């Protein structure tokens, strides 16, 4: 079992009702798929975010899944997730009065967050330089598929087409290349754009503290996903190598060994890198013995040879036939062990013995896992229409003094009309 000391002292945790780090920052967001996540993150960090949508409701309310499967603009769980922690105002953006209402709201804001099509943007009279001419401290944050500054700025795009064109899909898929490349699930190009946008915005916020001046922050989802491909990009940039996709492993220039195994119920687990050090080899032999698997695993002698020679090193694995066999026996041992236990027993049992192995959780498994629950990852919000708390995914980062907080469910259409940003 794990004998490593858990010596790290635990520092302070912010009181749940303390203001977030961005408290006082006023953000007006023009509802768009591309801005949704960035706006949510700003709200989570304490900014006051007012989400503006058309009087008829945003088309984004048609994105599923829906509460109890009933399609309704107030039932979209996509909307519930991405628009939580925001106030909502609806206006007739086709009319001069509605446009003036939007402009007036923006004049009272620190940040205007938008991801509109260029036609819509211009029809609203929202050219970035004009806005900032009359409001010099305003920061305009644009998050669009290809950025406002490139010749592809008007190309239509979705999460699927961004991940296809920008590199992630080329690296994601299967050893069998007759199967298509795969889009990573969960609207990730929007998250990637948001995770490039929010830190860039915070740089602009810090700059404004000293200069008093705003600026335009232009974010391209395509550019952001292009630089979120790890070796996919830099193997080409540095060495003109092209990575090839492999099932559940890093796309590589060289083929790697499979890392997925099956537990006793047919669920998948991640076996990671097989043991190499003497101590790790001793621990895996002990695990085999604890499960009484020695008789059906004759290659245990190879692991014991590895122990006798004091472990194996990476260069030896490739240069020495016996060391290669010892390494392969380690992977076979992990695969055999996995097949006799549950996926969770394999994960816990392996990690407690110091092996970097994983359970392949579905999203629901994460919410049933004690570690996440104990860290407070279950964020609760009361929903009056359901008469109960709903559990949302919690904070991605725990602050000691100024907490991430989930305090407000997503707005209904026009729920906060007339509300000023300062109230």
């Amino acid at each position, binding site marked *: 079992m794990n004998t490593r000391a858990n010596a790290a002292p635990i520092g302070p945790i912010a009181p749940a009702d303390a203001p977030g780090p*961005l408290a006082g920052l006023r953000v007006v967001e023009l509802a768009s798929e591309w801005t949704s996540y960035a706006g949510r993150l700003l709200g989570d960090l304490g900014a006051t975010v007012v989400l503006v949508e058309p009087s008829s409701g945003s088309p984004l309310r048609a994105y599923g*899944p829906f509460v109890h499967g009933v399609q309704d603009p107030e039932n979209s769980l996509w909307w519930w*997730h991405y628009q939580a922690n925001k106030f909502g105002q609806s206006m007739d953006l086709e009319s001069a009065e509605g446009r003036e209402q939007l402009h007036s709201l923006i004049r009272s804001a620190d940040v205007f967050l938008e991801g509109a099509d260029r036609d819509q943007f211009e029809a609203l009279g929202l050219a970035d330089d004009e806005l900032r001419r009359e409001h010099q401290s305003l920061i305009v944050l644009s998050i669009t598929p290809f950025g406002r500054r490139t010749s592809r700025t008007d190309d239509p795009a979705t999460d699927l087409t961004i991940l296809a064109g*920008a590199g992630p899909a080329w690296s994601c898929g299967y050893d069998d290349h007759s199967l298509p490349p795969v889009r990573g699930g969960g609207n990730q190009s929007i998250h990637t754009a948001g995770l490039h946008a929010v830190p860039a915005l*915070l740089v602009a916020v810090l700059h404004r503290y000293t200069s008093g001046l705003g600026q335009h922050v232009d974010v391209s989802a395509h550019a952001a996903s*292009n630089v979120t491909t790890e070796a*996919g990009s*830099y193997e080409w940039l540095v*060495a003109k190598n092209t990575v090839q996709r492999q099932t559940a492993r890093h796309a590589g220039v060289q083929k790697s060994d499979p890392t997925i195994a099956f537990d006793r119920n047919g669920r998948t687990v991640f076996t990671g890198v097989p043991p190499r050090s003497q101590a790790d080899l001793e621990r895996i032999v002990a695990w085999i013995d604890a499960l009484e698997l020695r008789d059906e695993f004759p290659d245990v002698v190879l692991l014991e040879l590895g122990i006798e020679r004091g472990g194996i090193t990476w260069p030896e694995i490739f240069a020495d036939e016996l060391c290669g066999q010892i390494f392969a026996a380690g992977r076979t041992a992990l695969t055999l062990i996995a097949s006799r236990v549950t996926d969770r027993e394999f994960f816990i049992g392996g990690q407690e013995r110091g092996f970097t192995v994983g359970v392949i959780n579905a999203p629901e498994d994460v919410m049933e896992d004690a570690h996440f629950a104990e860290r407070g990852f279950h964020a609760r919000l009361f929903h009056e229409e359901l008469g109960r708390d709903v559990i949302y995914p919690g904070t991605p980062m725990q602050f000691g003094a100024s907490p991430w907080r989930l305090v407000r469910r997503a707005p209904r259409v026009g729920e906060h009309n007339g509300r000023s940003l300062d109230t």
Partner: protein
Amino acid sequence: MARPLSHLRICDFTGQLAGAGATRFLAAFGAQVIRIEDPVRKGSWDILRGNTPYKDERRGVDLGGAFNNHNVEKLGITINMREQRGIELVEDLIRISDVVTENFAVGVLAGWGLTFERMRELKPDIIYASNCGFGHRGPYRNYKTWGPIVQAVCGLTFSSGLPDQLPAGWGYSYMDHHGGNFMVTAILAALVHRHKTGEGQWIDLATTEAGASLLGPAILDYTVNGTRMRRDGSPDSNHSPDMAPHAIYPCFGDDEWVAIACRTDAEWDRLATHLDLDADRRARYSTLAHRLAGQDDLDSVVLSWTQTRNKFDVQRELLALGIPSAAVQKPHERVDSDPATSEWGLWPTVTHTAMGEVRVDGLGSHLSETDWSMTKGAPCLGEHTDHVLAEILGLSAAEIAALHADGVV
């Protein structure tokens, strides 16, 4: 152009991408990032140091392409933390730093006596950002991870795949990128808080939590509706419940593919016209509900059109019709031939002391007044040790020579 973070100093123990990516962002905006490595093990805790890809036939700790990519614009020093004098040097550095960053396993910094409380004694408003797979609290706090384990445990691996196939994973350490991005978001938010209140703080980032937070609608589908993603035919991540057709289709050539997504009935109608679809099918698939119900047939129709065509021709024709479409670009295509990356300036060239000129990843943002810039490559091992000891910590030449002689740096 002004460098907006040039007033900040970062005492940086991060490595790999999950940590180094955070301080890379700060350095690109002008922060003075002082990356500390171990002289005894020649910085090998960061497995990317000296590792593939290589620009030429040379090999060595200073010649790894990934390490260069993740550490541009940083200063690099070596300090032996086994020596008390080494710990004292770091304490001196913390006294004049704004942020301490690390992505070690739990307990490494504390083992050197560098608890958050100690850091606050040294610098009362210090911001300390720790980053590890499971965070510093909770039952799994001592478990070890790397990108694929993080993605497996947090649900991202499971969520990506085709029906009746194994999880596809991600094909790379997606959460190493976002580990860094969440970390730098937290650091900058904490700097905003410090500006307003004078208060520093400790940020405990668990990348498994950060990853799970990126699966919101799927998690709500479970907590509200009880719907599990682990069910027959699921996940099916190239399809969408909100659009059809919506998939990646084969094109002419070896491993050539194109993504097509029709967001509305009108876009579908334009696609059907372009494909010269028969009247029966057009009528049958006029609504999203019918297209979703007949998705397999619809996919075969689209596939029979795409498979004899060049992927970029399909992209161009459909974009002209206002239909989202993208060739699945290979690395050389998106790096060298895509105006949306070249016009963005997405691949800046940096000069590395040993490697020479190398192109690296830029950022997905541009700021009109205080933009990022990347011109200097990653530091060679200990490249700036003497400079930092002399110019930043104020040590004399004799003191520096003694530190070298004693194996402290």
